[in-house]
């Protein structure tokens, strides 16, 4: 699943460490999320969305073509 975490983080000039601390995960998890190697749980997705003040679906892009 693709996401806009890196784009939003850079726009707001936030480091991976700061974002990780804010959503209570390790920096490695943020790296894996940004690389698309790991999919966040609903709980983590919600925390990230709350942090950026945006709805979940505007951060995490669910592509139906990929799933098919």
């Amino acid at each position, binding site marked *: 699943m693709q996401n806009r975490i890196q784009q939003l983080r850079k726009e707001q000039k936030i480091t991976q460490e700061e974002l990780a601390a804010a959503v*209570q*995960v*390790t920096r*490695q*998890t943020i790296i*894996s999320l940004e690389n698309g190697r*790991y999919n*966040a*749980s609903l709980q*983590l997705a919600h925390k990230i969305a709350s942090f950026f003040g945006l709805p979940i679906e505007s951060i995490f892009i669910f592509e139906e073509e990929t799933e098919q």
Partner: protein
Amino acid sequence: MKNKMTFPSKTKFRMFVGAALFFLGLVSFILSLGMFPNIQTSGMQDFTKGFYSGLGCGLMAAGVVCFVRNLLLLKNPEKMKKAKLEEEDERNIFLYNKTAYLGGLICFFGVYIATLIAGLVNAVVFSTLLWVLCGALIILFTTYLICRKVY
């Protein structure tokens, strides 16, 4: 099912586990030296004695490390916060579960192949491995039923 223990409580419990490991290691080491009265160890092979003494030393070392590490965590709130984050990080939990699943599967098939080979070589080893295999299957199935009910 959420774990209700707080992280400081878990840390204290692990200190207790470290102490228990140290004690178990000490018992194993003393057993290997044949110092327990009423327990005959003269029949033990050198290899078995060596195994018990090595196991004992290993457990004692692990117990000390476990105890000291958790004691240091209790005394340093910043380190405890970092350790808590590492332990409760969802990706790390996912990795532990994935590792346990894949590792368990590989071990299970390894024991199965070893059982097949042992059947051609040694009857005692064959029957021991077969019991281990059957025991593992029963435990796996029972665990699955329990997890299905709980989750």
